[in-house]
């Protein structure tokens, strides 16, 4: 398992004494797209927050590139090359597109590089660079959020419900970008509630229900399990 870039071992987490993630183990290898599927309330977002140090685990370890990073702060992890695009729109609505991109330079890249990389992947953003990000369309906002992943070249990318509230065509376009990012050697963990899109992009997938991973396999293997999981079979 020499090339595991992100590893979660026995992670438990909760809110105010109520545990919602009951011991999750996951390994994401270099250049892999790992999809986690699960119904609403499965604890996917919580898991992502734990991985990015936004929320403290009550037990278990988070290991990035072979190093245990429990107790790090989110900004430390971000500068070390871990990038979480959070649920909803991961942008600053009152900042302009340019200023949003400027915030991406904390991870080390220069502003010129960030802009070049972002506009190369999403040319639409270039025309709107002085527009306030809150006034962009939903798809454009998600592109801007993804631009951080493109521009900062993280080692590990975490994507939380990229497709939420977007048209299917747009979602496919975004997932093309995700695959392109993975080809550059980035390890990607992506969680989704609805199956189709992510299974097309992922090389490995898991199903999460009620705070536990109930099945791990290739996308093809999981397709059959899905209906059972969503109907509450577990």
């Amino acid at each position, binding site marked *: 398992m020499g090339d595991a870039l992100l590893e979660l071992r026995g992670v438990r987490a909760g809110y105010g004494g109520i545990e919602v993630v009951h011991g999750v183990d996951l390994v994401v290898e270099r250049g892999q797209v790992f999809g986690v599927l699960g119904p609403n309330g499965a604890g996917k977002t919580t898991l992502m927050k734990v991985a990015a140090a936004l929320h403290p685990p009550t037990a278990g370890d988070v290991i990035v590139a072979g190093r245990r990073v429990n107790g790090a*702060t*989110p900004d430390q992890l*971000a500068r070390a090359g871990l990038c979480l695009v959070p649920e909803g729109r991961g942008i*600053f609505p009152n900042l302009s597109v340019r200023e949003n991109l400027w915030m*991406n330079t904390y991870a080390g890249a220069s502003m010129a590089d960030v802009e070049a990389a972002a506009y190369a992947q999403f040319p639409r953003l270039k025309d709107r660079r002085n527009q306030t990000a809150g006034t962009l369309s939903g798809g454009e906002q998600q592109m801007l959020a993804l631009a*951080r992943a493109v521009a900062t070249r993280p080692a590990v990318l975490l994507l939380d419900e990229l497709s939420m509230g977007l048209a299917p065509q747009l979602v496919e376009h975004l997932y093309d970008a995700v695959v392109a990012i993975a080809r550059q050697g980035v390890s990607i963990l992506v969680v989704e509630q609805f199956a189709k899109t992510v299974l097309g992009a992922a090389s490995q997938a898991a199903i999460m229900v009620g705070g536990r991973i109930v099945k791990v396999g290739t996308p093809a293997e999981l397709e059959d399990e899905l209906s059972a999981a969503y109907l509450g079979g577990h």
Partner: protein
Amino acid sequence: MQLLWTYIVSGLTTAAIYAIAATGLVLTYTTTGVFNFAHGGVGMMAAFTYWQMRFGWHWPAPVALVLVLFVLAPLFGALLELVMMRRLDGTSDTTKLVVTLALMLATIGAATWIWNPNEARPIRKFWENSVVTVFGVRLPWHQVIALILAAVVAVALRLLLTRVRLGVAMRACVDDRALASLNGARQSRVAMASWAIGTSLAALAGILIAPTLNLSQLPLTLLIINAYAAAMIGRLRSLPMTFVGAIILGVSTDLLKGYADRISSWTSIDSKFLSGFYQSWPIVVLFLVLLLLPQNRLRSHTATRNREYIVKPTWPGTGLFVGIIVGGAIMLSYVLPKADLFSLNKMWGLGIIGLSMIPLVGYSGHISLCQLSLAGVGMVVMHHMGAHGNPIALVWAAVVAGIVGFIVALPSLRLSGIYLALSTAAFAVLMDRWIFVLPKWKLFGYSFDLFNGGNLNIVKTRLFGMRLTGYRSFFVFASVAFALVVMVVVLIRRSTYGQRLIALKDSPAACATLCMNPKITRLSVFTISAAIAGFGGAIYGQAMQSVTPQSLDFVAGLSILMVMVIGGLTSPGAALFMGMFLGSPFVANVAGKVVPSFSQLQTVLVGLVGIGLGKNPNGFIPSDIRPNWNIFLKHRAALGAVLVAFVGLWILRRADVFDNWVFAWCCLGLLALAPVVLRIITKEPFPPRREPGAEVPKLSVPVDQLGLTGPVSDEDARTLDQMLALPSVSG
């Protein structure tokens, strides 16, 4: 026309200073979510420091300026962030507010302590005698500089916030702090930078505004607080709107002052009635802005876990407490010398004013900064109606103060948190700057002289045909009054009404869905606590005999609140503690031997302890004293023994076996040791220490799985009790 123009231009220069102060406030609030009440106090400190360097030590002005504005002030701001503000993350709005209020108190106390307020400290304006003519108006250079600096601040901030990554990160934090840190921005650095800049701006405003009045702690602080109105017009969010607010505020203030004579002749109100109003005009604007601006509530950084809890007192415990108070007062009145007893009289009235905060601030979480002003209303009533010792005047004091409280609460109904604190502060300042100092006037043929020309004398009440003029009888009477109000407060806490108050504090939204009418509940609790404050004022006034408006000023009220918070805003014991601490000469006497000029230090001390509240917001009575003494409710015999021991000590003292000092030390020793000894004898466990900020005890399994795999263990049951602040059932 020329005159109008003159006032507008000079108003603009006032506006410039307000703008500088207000932008600092807005900057820290938006980026960190803490409304820094102490902004005025910090600016005042800076002005004094500048005076010390420039005129005290005769350093060159540029050196002093650079040192204060670019070194000391930013360092102080960064330090504040580091040691105080950072810990406030995840606490309730009330705690944040109390901590910054405590900081304000500490700065005022420290400045009074360092710089004797009775000395005159002239502070010269920049280029004092030079004047330039702008648009036909002769402007002193000092004002021109203020204008230029405001413009520089505006441009510099604009550049910082759009052209510098740190500034953009500040704005990013306003939008989404978590996301900013996901980007790799260091939260702490951004917050420190904004505190440093905010403090520097406060310092600049303080230095610019100081020469317009004599350097004096409280007025200077209040003058900077005037700028809060401008920040409110900017809704604590928009810097351009804050500048607009400052212009409205500054120009209207100067126009009012300039046209004071004409206004008087139009309205045929003598200007001496209005001068207090003009002086408080910015506060009036603040009040109006709070009431009128739509309150689409700002992003509230809500508490992740509420660390505050409210204990429910029992009747036997209350009976004991009340009995000890009255009994102790009777016993004390026979051993204390007359002079001591006389000055100690104040503690009961102060205590009742403190009790008035318990239902309002403690149970329902509305910070009110005007309880002492309401007490002042009670004093005024007492002066006018109780001139012949009529005891009914006490009732009227409560009724009138209640009505005033109702009227204050009515427009403030939709305000909460900092907005409510600001509006009640505005009311308090308005009362002691304008209403209480109003000269005599005539209306409809009646003559009114509210504050008796600045000095109320209050006559002691008659009761059952008996005049309470004897120092001993009044002391006991006041202690009974205090005990009665304690019972009222306990009654409120134990009633469904009290439960409703607490529920409303915990979740206003949930209460609305339960068909409670939050407005009526709020109005009523305001009224009740105002009535208690008025009653307390009537008793306090009798103890003081002659009252000046200065003794009712804003800082005095703030000290009361702060000591209450330190004791624990939900327990009547805190009111007793507060009364003793602020109302008795002993603390000052004892400490005065160790530290000279203790009375100022007392304010500093209160402020500093208040600042520590960020860690343990409950106060020491509910979290330390009460758990220690609870054991006596179970062992009645031991309780009897302790009481007998007290009486024994008292008898020995009466027999002059020892003096009052020994008596006091023995009593204190008994108080401290009794619970420990009893625990050792009965082998009861000591209460678990509630370490401030310590982790809440953990259950062995998550709470939703408790009892699924087997019976709930004793350990878990105890932990649950503790988490829910219930009396232990397993012990």
